[in-house]
């Protein structure tokens, strides 16, 4: 399994747990709203992602849509975490 796939699976698992769904039900194009994840759920998911990948996610719950971190869909979150992990490895 490559790095990309590994990240994708971890994030899917984190989001599925938050949404109380089976990971197989979580699709990349789904939005937090589709998954029934509210603002508090989102903050908790971001925290779990930070812990899982040992990265710091630039996410402001005050206005999530305006954060530097794209949370518009599961796929967007995966892509954003990939670049954070890459940046961490380059550092």
């Amino acid at each position, binding site marked *: 399994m490559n790095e990309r796939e590994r990240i994708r699976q971890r994030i899917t698992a984190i989001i599925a747990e938050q949404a109380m769904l089976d990971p197989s039900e979580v699709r990349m194009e789904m939005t937090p709203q589709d998954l029934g994840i509210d*603002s508090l759920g989102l903050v908790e998911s971001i925290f779990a992602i930070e812990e899982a990948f040992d990265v710091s996610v630039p996410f402001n719950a*005050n206005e999530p849509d305006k954060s530097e971190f794209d949370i518009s869909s599961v796929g967007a979150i995966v892509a954003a975490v990939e670049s954070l992990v890459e940046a961490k490895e380059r550092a």
Partner: protein
Amino acid sequence: MSGQAGLRRVAITGAGTINALGHDVPATLEAFREGRCGIGQLEFRDVERLTIQIGAQVRGYDPQAHFNRQQITLYDRFTQFTLLAAKEAVAQSGLSFQGELGLCSGVVLGTAGGGLNTWDENYRVVYEEGKNRVHPFVVPKLMNNAAASHVSMEFGLRGPAFSVSTACASANHAMGLAFQMIRAGAAKVMLTGGSEAMLVFGGVKAWEGLRVMSKDACRPFSANRNGMVQGEGAGVFVFEDWDHARARGAEILAEVVGFAMTADAADIVMPSAQGAERAIAGAMADARLAPETFGYINAHGTGTAANDKTECAAVAHAFGPHADRVMISSTKAMHGHVIGGTGAVELLACIMALRDGVIAPTIGYEEPDPECALDVVPNEAREAKVGAVLSNAFAFGGLNAVLALKRA
């Protein structure tokens, strides 16, 4: 003279504070008039490990200048702030609680975190430093009612004495209860308000987790706002039976005329406009005053998108067509969010509006937000004569508490 339906009228005859803007009421009011900002770089142990490093700290404060060694051993920072504010308020009122009066006078104070400095220091001792022994006074120092109890002891208040903890609405709930007790004849005088001293590593770290804190500035109602900034301090007032105050010829700073509290019963952090609106309308109804009577609202105005938009919608609904004429400002951009004590520090802006005809501004205001299209008194204080004012507080947990005051 009694009020409606045999209820007693309630006068404010003393005010005291210590906060980032000043160590007493005159200094704080001067800062309000000047639109001065008390927010700056935080200074305390381990601050470099925080993502959020700004706050409105009380500066130039030396506990030893006010308290002796034994007192400092027993008083957490939040208790010290409370006692200093209470002394200023009682001195202004000219009251002495010896004899009969002490028996029918009390104290009700708000705080969210209580003795957080004490928790923080002593967790560090046992967890980080691995010590197995703590100071014997940890418990009496950290308990939420410590401040209320020390105030009762300091002044000999032997009637109702307790603390209220409803997060950011604590002080407003406390003052509302003090008002209701005096109005109902259950007490002659109540010392009331609130205090908070949460600016320690653990306190700010906990708030960081929620990701609603601003890294750079508090800009309530401004389109480019990005969160709240914490402050610390205390505000204490003397609420007194109106007839009692008049009979002794006391100077009355303002009259407390209404109070309402509601619960959103919806979400632990996201506020509801309906819950806020019911509290605002409730306070006006309790005061038996129409919206047109009110010239100023001291907003909860935290500078988070969730609060500011919800609060403006609630005010717009509750005030109807008069919403365009009422001034509303958030002083949190100056003294920070004093959490459980915030409503008390903010009540000073209400009293200043009524007594001095000066409306404290919302500083840090940069860009209009169409969702907050009210007169937010941007950046500069304004002279205006107002006859009645409201003070809003909306807490996490969906708990809303609004006070109504009238010019004395």
